[in-house]
């Protein structure tokens, strides 16, 4: 662990730098969107990491309710915080892309609305934890919210199929790739970079959570 975390951080920095280069310089402009397509190289990875974070909350919350081990709660809480951050970034990136391409910052489109609902659910998750008088009860209630909230992910993902929507459909569906190879490469590098960076942030955040719990225990020990 002593070496793993700096190595993971270093790998994230290298991949993120490569992703910036690929997204800003190496990728060609899109035939329809022109250079606005470059926003996709931060918007799509942000949304992907939000999905990953919510999946982490989902699995860790089930394990916490089942095993009642604090480590699962620490992972769920940490991932929920990252989920809120990256969902907000996905929304922000999408809005900045939408203004010049769609002519509006926001529209009541199924993909946008379901993503905003995800943001609100996990903001609620964090609020429940912050406001709970009994931390254990707060953790249990948050775990239920974390599990139920994750059901929004398939709705978000398939919203472009199920509803009439402005949002572009997926460019990669079961091996059918509707992207030029240089664009696909730029997207894949950024997806990998954001995934590695998410792993790094999650480990740091779980460590913080663990230490804060230990600090509270030590303070109680010192007082009592």
């Amino acid at each position: 662990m002593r070496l793993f975390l700096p190595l993971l951080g270093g790998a994230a920095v290298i991949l993120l730098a490569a992703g910036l280069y690929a997204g800003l310089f190496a990728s060609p402009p899109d035939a329809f969107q022109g250079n606005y397509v470059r926003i996709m190289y931060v918007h799509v990875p942000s949304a992907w990491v939000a999905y990953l974070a919510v999946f982490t909350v989902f699995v860790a919350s089930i394990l916490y309710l089942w095993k009642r081990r604090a480590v699962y709660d620490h992972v769920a809480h940490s991932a929920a915080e990252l989920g809120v951050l990256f969902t907000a970034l996905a929304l922000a990136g999408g809005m900045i892309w939408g203004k010049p391409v769609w002519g509006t910052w926001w529209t009541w489109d199924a993909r946008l609305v379901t993503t905003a609902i995800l943001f609100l659910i996990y903001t609620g998750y964090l609020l429940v934890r912050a406001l709970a008088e009994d931390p254990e009860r707060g953790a249990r209630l948050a775990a239920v919210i974390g599990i139920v909230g994750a059901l929004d992910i398939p709705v978000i993902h398939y919203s472009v199929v199920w509803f009439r929507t402005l949002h572009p459909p997926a460019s990669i569906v079961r091996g059918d790739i509707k992207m030029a190879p240089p664009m696909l490469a730029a997207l894949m590098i950024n997806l990998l970079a954001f995934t590695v960076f998410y792993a790094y942030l999650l480990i740091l955040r779980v460590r913080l959570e663990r230490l804060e719990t230990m600090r509270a225990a030590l303070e109680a020990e010192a007082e009592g």
Partner: protein
Amino acid sequence: MSPPAAITLAYGVVWAAILLYLWRLRRRLRQVEADVRAQHTQTRSGEVFIER
């Protein structure tokens, strides 16, 4: 909004938020590690908690 302005805004927002989060996370970690060390000198039981 021109493409350079939109791209600068999008990358600026994403990267500013990520770097701010990382900076706050590291600052909180340093603070809590210092607190646990200080508690350890009082209780002599905190050493295991700050092992990386």
